[in-house]
Structure formats: C-alpha cells, structure tokens
C-alpha cells in the first residue's frame, strides 16, 4: 500500500533523528506494518523503498531479517507464545496447546476465519513471569492454559 500523508509526515520527523535517512527504516517499517494492514506487502515495501531512496530488494532484505515483520498476511489478532527455556520449564507447551485449541490455528499460521495468527517466539524477556505470551503487542504473563484461553475469549 502507498504511504499515507500522515505516515510520511511522521517519517519526515523521524529521519531528523539520524545523520543518515536509512537509519529510520526499521522504526518506519514498524509503523507501516501497524498502519497498513498488519503486514508488509510487496506494495508497502516498494513505497517504503521509494521514501528511503533504496531499492525494494534492500528493504526486503532488512524486513525479512527481523522476526517482528510479517511478509505475508496474518490474522486479525497476533498471538505469540514464548517457547524459550524459562517458559518451557514452566509449561509453555500447554499454553500453546490451549491457544491452538481455542483459535483453531497452528503455530506459524492463521485460523480459518482469519481472526488469529499464532506463532512460537523466542525469549521475550518475561522469564521471571513465565510462561507468557504476547497478544497484539501486549504482554500476558504468569499464564495458565485456562488464563490464556480467557484472554483470547476476551478479545473483540
């Protein structure tokens, strides 16, 4: 998608934080993903490339390096369950099982109704409150399978 005027205005300010325009690319891609459909479509990548005076393939090369950027469409709610050591020791497998059962999605995919995208993620820094998951960017910690299910039920 093309960049909106509001995004362009935001980026015009953002690039002033750095001696080189390109440095604002990753923060800008976050904003693109947030505002332009929840993922970075080829059209969005092209629009960002044009703004940053880069080749689309350079922007793609950056976007594809970072796990927080989605290069394919994802469900309406993104559910990320940590699978790293501290969460694994405290039952993250059961959290993922509850999440899959509730949403009907498999890790790395979206539910049929496209309401949920479910993924495994590596350590999110919630180790002292494991197990944990992130739903649409918000941390949910000290989870039980029941609590994880309730959280998903509470989404609009």
């Amino acid at each position: 998608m093309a960049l909106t005027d509001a995004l362009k205005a935001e980026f015009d300010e953002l690039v002033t934080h750095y001696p080189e325009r390109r440095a604002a690319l990753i923060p800008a891609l976050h904003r693109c993903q947030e505002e332009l459909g929840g993922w970075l479509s080829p059209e969005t990548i092209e629009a960002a490339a044009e703004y940053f005076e880069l080749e689309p393939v350079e922007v793609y090369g950056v976007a594809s390096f970072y796990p927080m950027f989605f290069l394919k469409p994802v469900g309406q709610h993104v559910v990320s369950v940590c699978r790293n050591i501290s969460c694994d020791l405290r039952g993250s497998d059961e959290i993922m099982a509850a999440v899959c059962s509730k949403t009907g999605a498999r890790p790395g995919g979206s539910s049929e109704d496209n309401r949920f995208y479910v993924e495994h993620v590596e350590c999110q820094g919630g180790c002292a409150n494991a197990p944990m998951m992130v739903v649409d960017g918000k941390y949910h910690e000290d989870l039980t399978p029941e609590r994880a299910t309730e959280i998903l039920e509470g989404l609009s």
Partner: protein
Amino acid sequence: MSHPTYLMSRMEREDSHTLAGYEAQGGYKALRKILTDPIPPQSVIETVKDSGLRGRGGAGFPTGLKWSFMPDREKDPRTRYMAVNADESEPGTCKDRVIMREDPHGLVEGCLIAAWAMGLDAVYIYVRGEYRLPYDRVAAAIAEARAAGLVGQDILGSGFSCEIHMHKGAGAYICGEETGLMESLEGKRGHPRPKPPFPAGFGLWGQPTTVNNVETIFNVPFIMDRGAEWFRTMGTEKSPGNFLCGISGHVESPGVYEVPLGMPARQIMDEFAGGVWKGRELKAWIPGGSSTGFLKPDAIDTPMDHDSIKAAGSMFGTGAMIVLDETASVVRSALVLMNFYEHESCGQCSQCREGTQWLAQVFQRLHDGEGREEDLELLRGIANGMAPGKTICALSDAAAIPTHSVLRNFADEIEEYVREGGHEAVMKKRQALAGAAS
C-alpha cells in the same frame, strides 16, 4: 537478607517513572552537581574507573576503561555517539525491562552523565521492539526531561548539549551484540562486524561510539552522587556494587531481585526466590543467561560474581539464573536452546550457521529417541569446530558453551536418552521410579 540496596530503591513509588517521582527521590542530583560547578569529564571517567563498575550486559568489561577508549576530542573532532543496548534478549534475562519501566529517568540521567564524560553529541537507546511499555516509559521520560531543560541544547544553562533518541528494534537476538546493534541502528540487517576496528574508533556511521548496557548506565548516577568508595562497599573487590538478578525456572518465586555481587547462588535461590519449587531437589542451574551453560548442584554455593563463576567453569553473563528441578530434562532444555541459537544465527559465518543447525538436529534426535552412543563425540566435535573465537561474533560460542556444559556435567543423561529411547520413555521411567519410591 538485609543488605544495602540502591538500584530498586526508587521503584516502590507509584510515580517512580515520572520526573516528579524521580526528582522527589534525589533524581538528577548527580547531573546538576556535575554541570553546576563543572566536574571535568576526565574526572567523571576516573570516578567510574575507581568505582570498579563492570558492564552488566554480559561481558563484564570495566565501564570506565571502555569510556576511556573514546578518542581525545582535541585530536579527533568527529561526531561521537553512545548506543545504549536495551535489546535484552539473552534467554533468562529480564532486568533492563524493569529499569526502563519503573525508573526510566535513572537511565536518562546516566546517559547524560556518560555524554558529558565522553563528550557525546547524541545517544541512541536501542530497545527491542517487543518492549512496548518500557519503550514508551523511556520515551516519555526523555520528553519530560527535555521540557525541563535536561535534554537537548544548553542543558541547565551549562552550555553542554546532548540529544537522546529512542530507537525500536524488531526482534533479533543478534542485535544485542554491539556491532550487530550498530548495523541494525543504521537500518540494515543485524550482521555483526569484524573487530577490529572497535566501536570507539569506528562505530555508528563510522564515528567513535561506545555501547553500554541499560543497567550499566543506570549505575552511573548513583556512583557520581555517592562516590566510588561508597560503591565499593558493596559486592566484591573485583566486581563491586549490586546487580539485578533475574531468577527463573523451577523456583517458588521467580523474579528480579537486587543483590550484591558475590552473594552465593544458593542464597539468592533460597532467600529471594523461595528455593526450588514444590519441595524438589535441584538438578541443574544456569548462572548468567542461556549462553553460560548448565552447572551441577555442587556448584550452587558459588558466589555470583565474575571471577568466582569463571572459576566454577562458567560465566557471570547477565546474572540471570535459571533453575531446573530434579524432574527436568537437561537434554530437552539444551534442545530448546539450540533451536533458539539456530533461529538467531545471522548466517554470516559457516561455523555458526551450520553448527547451530547440527547441534539442534543432534539434540532433536536424542529427544525423539533416535540418539546414538556416538552422539556425545559428535556434539563435542561440532562444538569444538564452532568456538572459541572462530567466528565474527560470540553467538557461535554461545551455542558451543552450553553444549560443552551438557557433555561435561550431564553426559549420563544423554546416555540415558540413548539407552531408554528418547524423552517420552525417559520421563515415563522416571515417573514410575518416583511412584515406586513414594
């Protein structure tokens, strides 16, 4: 368990993250002292050196010494930067998040003092993308400080100017490596750079740069306010001060606790974290984040400081303890970690790119019941090919070290997995034994 605390001392207050809450508790006092009757930058660096403060991000490098590597401004007029490493992503580590969320002005003040000491033009705080609330709190703190004349041009009318910018990462462990962080901050893939050149000579955009961890910088205002001697009354001679110990896994009360360096790991585990959960015995523990490897219970009385943990065959790392109880499987936890390192390898060095995959594959087959007796030697051979010092950065070492630790301390469990036919069979057998015993 009473000992002097300072790192978490302001966090009790509801408004600890605001300028009002911070200033009401002595905040920005150190900065005002330095700028009002100016303390020369060199003296600030000397005080930090004298305090013996060591980096809290993993390597434990002396902070004052690192600062002194920045070139002399008179001879080298280039623009100079600091990048604050808030990419906290070493598994088990969850302390910088607490600082940024509860006491962000402490970090901002530390940045300003560092900027004065090193003559910086700008500071970038690189926060991992997932840390939304910590990011927002630090950004709000910078805005408040700017409005109060504490950030930006002519700070407190002293003529000293410094900008602090927030920067959001996008979820890659390798961006916690200082040169990977700099590449990422420049808008590129987080591919670590070969060293030399070191950041102090050729850092962000080729300019002199220092990279420091959040907790390291957070210590600085306390040291400048209360003095190097005060700082040395806590901790050990070679590792002074307190640190934020994140303790997770199989303990009753996981958490982030402020403890003096040199406190025995057992004391932290028992007195702060309530001991191994469910009344169980300790099977294994990791002293300082996933890269530091699995230790046996016989090392649990080791003091938590850089030299003592090194003497026990591991590393202090980020001081993030992970506890495994008697029912846990070290093979499974090693598999979890190797999957992680495989996922996070940036792919530049073949030893790391291939080695992390092979380690993950071998632990996977042990887990799945397809392990072979020769897998012990295979794991050792792969890990020996990956480290030490064979690659651009230490991620390869970070996968090899825990592998060696499993071979050294828990080879019998690998043998058990081969003999019994994998994770499920091993767990079933252990449950049966536990049932028979009770």
